[in-house]
C-alpha cells in the first residue's frame, strides 16, 4: 500500500470540442506516428489482397491474349472488349456494392435478384411509364428501398436470421413481380431509360459511369463516414457496438435499405439494357453478388471487407465470361471454373488469417502424440 505507484497523467475531462487542445494533440500525433496513406481506410491488409486480385485479372488477360492472339493484336478491339467487360459487370457490380455493406455488417441478402426484378417490373408498368423517365427511376429506387426496409425490419426487430428473412423475400418478391406483370414481359417505351444502356459519353458507356459512381460513393461511405464505421463495428462485434452506444438494430435496417437502393439502381440499368422487364429478370444475381464479395476478400462473418475487392471480384467474373465467349466455349464449363475460383479465393483467405497454419500445427500435434 505504501509503495508509490507509477504516476499516470490523465487527460482532463474536457469536452472533445476544444480547439486549442486538439490542435496541440494533433501536432503531437503527426510527429509521433507516420501519416496514413490515402488508401489506408480501405485497410492495408485489404489493399494487399486487392493487388492479388489485380494479378488474377492480369493472368486472365494473358490467357485471353494467348488463346486469341488474333483478336488481342488489335488494340482497338482490346479497348472495346474491356469496355464490354465493364458493361457486363456494371449491373451486378451495383448490386454487389450494396451486398458488400450487408455482409460487412454481419448479414446476407439473398433477395437482391428478386428486388431487381420487382423494381424493374414495377417501374415498367403502363401506369409508371406514364410519369416518364424520372417517375420510373423514382419508382424503382423507392420499391428497392421499401423491400430493403421490410428485410431489415424483419431481421433487426423481428429477430429473423438474415438468411431466412431474405430467402423468404426472394420468393415473395418474385411472386409479386409475376403478379404485377401478369407473367408478361413489359416493354420499356421510354427512350431516355433505354438510352442509359445504349448511349456513351466520351466513348465510354453510361452504364460504366453509373457503376463507377456507385462504387466511388460506396467506397467513401464505407471508409470515410460514420455510417461505414458503424457498419464495420456492427459486423465485427455487435455486442461491443451496442455497449458503445451504437444503435445496432437501426443500423442493420439501414444496411438492407442501402442494399435495396442499389437493387433499384440496378433495376433501371437492367431494364434499359433489355428495353423491357419481367419477373424472371436478374435471375441468380444474389449468387453472383455474394461470390464477388467473397472473392473480393470480405469476411462472410462480417466486420471486414473492401468495396474495391468486391468490384474486382465482379470484374474477374465478367472477364471469365468474356474469355469463354471469345473462345466459343460453353457456359457450363464457365460455371465450373467460377465455382473453382470461389473455393480457391476462400482457401487463400484462410491462409491469410492463419487458420491453415493452425491446421498444420494441430496435425503435427496429433502425429507426435
Amino acid at each position: 500500500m505504501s509503495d508509490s505507484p507509477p504516476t499516470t497523467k490523465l487527460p482532463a475531462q474536457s469536452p472533445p470540442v476544444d480547439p486549442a487542445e486538439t490542435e496541440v494533440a494533433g501536432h503531437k500525433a503527426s510527429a509521433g506516428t507516420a501519416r496514413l496513406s490515402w488508401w489506408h481506410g480501405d485497410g492495408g491488409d485489404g489493399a494487399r489482397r486487392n493487388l492479388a486480385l489485380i494479378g488474377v485479372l492480369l493472368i486472365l488477360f494473358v490467357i485471353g491474349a494467348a488463346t486469341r492472339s488474333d483478336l488481342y493484336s488489335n488494340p482497338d478491339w482490346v479497348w472495346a472488349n474491356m469496355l464490354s467487360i465493364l458493361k457486363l459487370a456494371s449491373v451486378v457490380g451495383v448490386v454487389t456494392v450494396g451486398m458488400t455493406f450487408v455482409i460487412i455488417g454481419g448479414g446476407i441478402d439473398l433477395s437482391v435478384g428478386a428486388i431487381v426484378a420487382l423494381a424493374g417490373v414495377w417501374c415498367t408498368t403502363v401506369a409508371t411509364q406514364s410519369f416518364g423517365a424520372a417517375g420510373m427511376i423514382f419508382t424503382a429506387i423507392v420499391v428497392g428501398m421499401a423491400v430493403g426496409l421490410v428485410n431489415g425490419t424483419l431481421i433487426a426487430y423481428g429477430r429473423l436470421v438474415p438468411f431466412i428473412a431474405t430467402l423468404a423475400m426472394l420468393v415473395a418478391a418474385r411472386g409479386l413481380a409475376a403478379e404485377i406483370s401478369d407473367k408478361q414481359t413489359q416493354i420499356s417505351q421510354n427512350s431516355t431509360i433505354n438510352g442509359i444502356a445504349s448511349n456513351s459519353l466520351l466513348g465510354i458507356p453510361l452504364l460504366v459511369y453509373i457503376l463507377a459512381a456507385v462504387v466511388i460513393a460506396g467506397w467513401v461511405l464505407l471508409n470515410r463516414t460514420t455510417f461505414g464505421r458503424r457498419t464495420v463495428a456492427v459486423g465485427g462485434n455487435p455486442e461491443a457496438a451496442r455497449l458503445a452506444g451504437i444503435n445496432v438494430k437501426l443500423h442493420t435496417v439501414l444496411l438492407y435499405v442501402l442494399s435495396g437502393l442499389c437493387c433499384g439502381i440496378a433495376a433501371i440499368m437492367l431494364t434499359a439494357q433489355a428495353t423491357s422487364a419481367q419477373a424472371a429478370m436478374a435471375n441468380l444475381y444474389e449468387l453472383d453478388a455474394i461470390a464477388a464479395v467473397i472473392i473480393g476478400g470480405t469476411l462472410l462473418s462480417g466486420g471486414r471487407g473492401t468495396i474495391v475487392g468486391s468490384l474486382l471480384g465482379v470484374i474477374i467474373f465478367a472477364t471469365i465470361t468474356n474469355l469463354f465467349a471469345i473462345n466459343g466455349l460453353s457456359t457450363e464449363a464457365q460455371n465450373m471454373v467460377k465455382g473453382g475460383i470461389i473455393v480457391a479465393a476462400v482457401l487463400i483467405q484462410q491462409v491469410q488469417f492463419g487458420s491453415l497454419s493452425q491446421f498444420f500445427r494441430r496435425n503435427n500435434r496429433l502425429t507426435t502424440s
Partner: protein
Amino acid sequence: MSETGRPLVEAPADAVAGEVVLRLSDVVKTFPGVRALDGVQLEVRAGEVHCLLGQNGAGKSTLIKVLAGVHRPDSGLVEWRGQPVSFANPQAAMRAGIATIYQELDLVEDLSVAENAFLGHEPRSLGFIRRGHMARRTRQILGRLGHAEIPPGRMVRALPAAGKQVVSMARALSHEARLIIMDEPSAVLAHDEVDNLFRIVRELTAQGIAVIYISHRLEEIREIGDRVTVLKDGRTTAANLPARDTPTRDLVSRMTGRTIEYVFPERSADTTVGEKLLEVDGLTRSGEFADVSLTVAAGEIVGIAGLVGSGRSEVLETIYGARRAESGTVRMAGKALRPGSVGAAVRAGLGMAPEERKSQALLLGEPIYRNVTLATFARYARLGFTDIGKERAEADRIAESLEMRPRDVNRPVRTLSGGNQQKVVVGRWLLGGTRLLLLDEPTRGVDVGARAELYQVIRELAAQGVGVLLVSSEVPEVLGLADRVLVMREGRVVRTAPAAELDESTVLDLVMSGSLMEGAAA
C-alpha cells in the same frame, strides 16, 4: 466415507484404493500477460474425493483444462498412474481414463441419452452403430448411477439439468474413467438433486474411482470431500488438508493469503464526495437480481463484491441499459434514464467497461484508435464524414496518458496484452462527457504492473469528479479501491458499508456463507 453398499459400479480391474493415481509437480501455464498456473502441486488417490478450493481466477479452470488435455502445461510434471504424461488433446485424456464434467455440460442437446453417453466411441459393427447394444449398455450404466428411469432414447434437450448431469457422468463411465473431474456440479442443481449427486459420487469412489470435486460451497466440501487442495493465484497454498476437520478460517485464509502484492494508490487526503450522480432504486430482474438500490456520488468509488452468478454484472448491465429492468428506476443526475437503452445511458454520461473484454468491448482486428473512439467517432465527424486525423490524435493522447504499450495507435487491438486492451476500453470513456464509469472486472487477465496503473487511473478519475461503480471478484481490489462497498449474494445486496469497516475475510464470509446457509436450509 464411502457407504459400502452393493457394488453399483464396476471398478477398473486394477484400481487399488488409496494408491496415488495423479500427481502434479510445479505445473506452470502462462497465457499472454497472465501466469494462470504458477507452480501447482496436487496429489489425488484412487477412491477419494479430492476437493479443489480457490477464488475466481485462482487457476482452477486452467488446471482442469490441463488435466483434460485442453491445455498443455509450459513446465512441470504431470504423472498419471506413475507415468509422466502430456495429453495432446481431450480425446487422449479420455482414453487414459480422465473424464471431465464441465459446468456447462458439453452435451449435444438434439441427440439421445445413449448417443451422448457414447459420443465419439459408439459401439460399431461393420461401420454401423449397434444401437441396441448401445442402448443396453447405456441403460446398464444409468442403472448403476441410480437413474434407471432415464430412457436411453430420450432426447437430452428434454431432460432437466440434473438429468443432463447424470448423462455427463454416464459418458464418463462409458469411457471407464479412473478419474472424474467435476467442475461445480452442484451449481445447476436443486437441493434434493445435490443429495442424489453425492450418492452417485460415493458409489463411484467406493469402486476406486478418484473424483476431483470443485465447488464454492464449503458446506458441500465438508460433506463429500476427503482431502482439500487450495489454490491461490495459480499456486498451491495448501495441499491435502482434511476436508472435514480443517477450520473454515484456515481454508479462507489460505484462499486469500496474498501472494500478489496489490499496490493501491494512496487515497487523497480530502475525499470530498460531490453530489449524487447515480441513484438506483429497487432495480429487479427476476432470476438475476431483486430490489437493488444504490447511489454513486461524483468523485466516489463504489464497489460491488460477490461471486460469479450473484447478479453483480447483471446489475451493472441493467443500469447501463444493456438489459431492461422489470421494475425499479435508474436516475442519472436527477433525471430518469430510459430503461433498456444504451444510447440514452451514454448520452447521459455513463460509460461501461464490460466483463468480457474481447467479446463485449473490442473490435480485435481494428486499429487501436478506432477502438478508442468507438463510442465517440460520431462526435468528431462533420456531416457524417469521419475525421480520422482527429480520432487518431485523440486516441494518441489517451494512449500517452494511460501509458499504453505499444503506443502506435494504428496497430490492431488484437496484438495488445490484456492490460493494454483494458486501457483501450477504459480510455474509450475518457474522451469527454463520461461522468459515471461502470467497471466490470477491470483487472481480469491483467498483469500486476498494468493493474497498478489501472488502479491509479481509476483513482485519478474519481479525483476529477467521475463517479465509479466497480465490480470485482477480487475482494482486496474492491476493498482497496472503493470508498463504499456493497456485498451481493444471490441477486440481493446483503450489506452496504464503508470500505474501511470491512476486511477481506468478513466480505468472503458474507459472500460464501450465503451458500453455506442455503446448503444448511436444504
